[in-house]
């Protein structure tokens, strides 16, 4: 029986990995991801989960171990955060280039210096171009559901790509939420066995990770780029089938009260739910505002974004990361670029905030929408604004 229980989101993610019957977990603990892998190590130690838990000496080793595990066709899971993800950075590219279906939960956290264990999206943005499928979740149920979906997507033979599930550190990982924990039998219906097409096998030897001289490297990268872009179809199918079985449907972006909205706000992750409350309050006051909660970060949903904003005059984009010396937040610059070629497009205004665990309240999002609308009308001599900074 499906149970709805009050549970810490990290623990629900660990349960999702268990329900997915993972074969190998290789991980190194780092706040605020620790509870996920801690729970999994206990499940393996107690015999509740029949898997190999590899307590490696660093995140670089964690991802390297995941490569080996995925190469033999084992279902592979890990989790990390912030500095840990930076340490595994070079191996992230290897995972996607070698097309290994590894699933990784990422507890989004700021980067040093100064040392901050609190949440923002700096770590995500530094791995934006590593070739992984990247999905953001806004609450605990989405974290549980998308961890299951991630295995289905990653292992689909049309995709064969690693998947990151991004969940805000502390603001999601450490909160207790009511979450439907699904039945093992239903999960097994949704999630077939992992059948990696060309695993390492002594009876049928292959070479993995060979070098690619200039006369082949470009073709290999083209094949990888096409695989990531076209994985969107696989993601949409997986979400559809997940919804048909479990009743909860997901999409690349969620439009919240966007009908007739002239001003739209775009956010990612758990802040989207706070922003929804701000939209509710402003709608009650008669303002035609709406929210786009962006779920699918890679592959980027160009068509859906263009469709979602086509009738708006202003699009305010809120980033939880800084691109130093650049055009503002990475999400804002991406969205602006996606809209540039359209004949009719909203004015795009960028804000950066919520850095290193700084809270943005409902009143804060109201202020961002109002300020963004004003900048759209009057212009600004800045490329973007940092919200909530003391001056």
């Amino acid at each position, binding site marked *: 029986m499906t149970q709805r229980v009050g549970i810490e989101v990290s623990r629900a993610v660990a349960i999702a990995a268990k329900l997915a019957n993972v074969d190998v977990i290789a991980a190194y603990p780092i706040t605020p991801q620790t509870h996920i892998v801690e729970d999994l190590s206990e499940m393996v130690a107690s015999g509740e989960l029949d898997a190999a838990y590899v307590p490696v000496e660093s995140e670089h080793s964690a991802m390297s171990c995941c490569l080996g595990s995925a190469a033999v066709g084992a279902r592979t899971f890990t989790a990390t955060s912030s500095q840990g993800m930076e340490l595994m950075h070079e191996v992230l590219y290897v995972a996607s*280039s070698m097309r290994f279906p590894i699933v990784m939960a990422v507890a989004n956290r700021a980067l040093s210096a100064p040392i901050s264990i609190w949440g923002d999206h700096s770590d995500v943005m530094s791995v934006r171009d590593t070739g992984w499928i990247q999905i953001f979740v806004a609450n605990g149920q989405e974290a549980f559901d998308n961890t299951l979906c991630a295995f289905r997507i990653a292992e689909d033979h049309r995709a*064969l790509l690693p998947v990151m599930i991004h969940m805000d550190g502390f603001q999601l990982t450490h909160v207790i939420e009511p979450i439907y924990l699904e039945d093992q039998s239903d999960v097994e219906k949704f999630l077939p066995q992992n059948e990696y097409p060309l695993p390492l096998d002594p009876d049928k030897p*292959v*070479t993995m990770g060979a070098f690619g001289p200039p006369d*082949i490297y470009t073709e290999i990268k083209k094949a990888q780029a096409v695989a990531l872009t076209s994985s969107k179809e696989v993601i949409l199918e997986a979400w559809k089938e997940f919804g048909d079985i479990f009743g909860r449907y997901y999409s690349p972006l969620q439009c919240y009260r966007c009908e007739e909205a002239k001003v739209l706000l775009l956010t990612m992750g758990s802040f989207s739910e706070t922003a929804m409350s701000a939209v509710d309050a402003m709608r009650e006051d008669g303002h035609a505002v709406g929210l786009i909660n962006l779920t699918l970060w890679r592959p980027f949903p160009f068509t859906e974004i263009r469709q979602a904003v086509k009738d708006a005059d202003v699009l305010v984009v809120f980033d939880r990361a800084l691109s130093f010396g650049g055009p503002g937040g990475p999400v804002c610059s991406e969205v602006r670029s996606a809209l540039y070629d359209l004949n009719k497009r909203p004015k795009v205004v960028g804000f950066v905030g919520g850095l290193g665990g700084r809270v943005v309240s409902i009143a804060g999002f109201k202020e961002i929408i109002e300020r963004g609308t004003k900048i759209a009308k009057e212009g600004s001599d800045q490329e973007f604004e940092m919200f909530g900074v003391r001056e």
Partner: protein
Amino acid sequence: MTESEGKPTWQQIEIGAIITEPGSARQYQTGDWRTQRPTYEHERCIKCGLCSIYCPEGCIGPNEEGYFEADLFYCKGCGICARECWTKAITMVEEE
């Protein structure tokens, strides 16, 4: 497009660029990296094989008469054989 003749298109690349054919590195001609090539004075060669031991490419072996020579399909022209040959039987000359 003569340059790409016989080379795979992006659609033909195996998943993750996995190589399914064993020993395919043999087809890789490293000889075209060469700017110098070894030449031999057989009257000085004592057939000790020291050159083949030092060759980092592993491309030196005895010919039908027992003289050690490099396989120029693989020889990169590094000159280590010429340096190590203690009877000075090997001389590196510029490729034309």
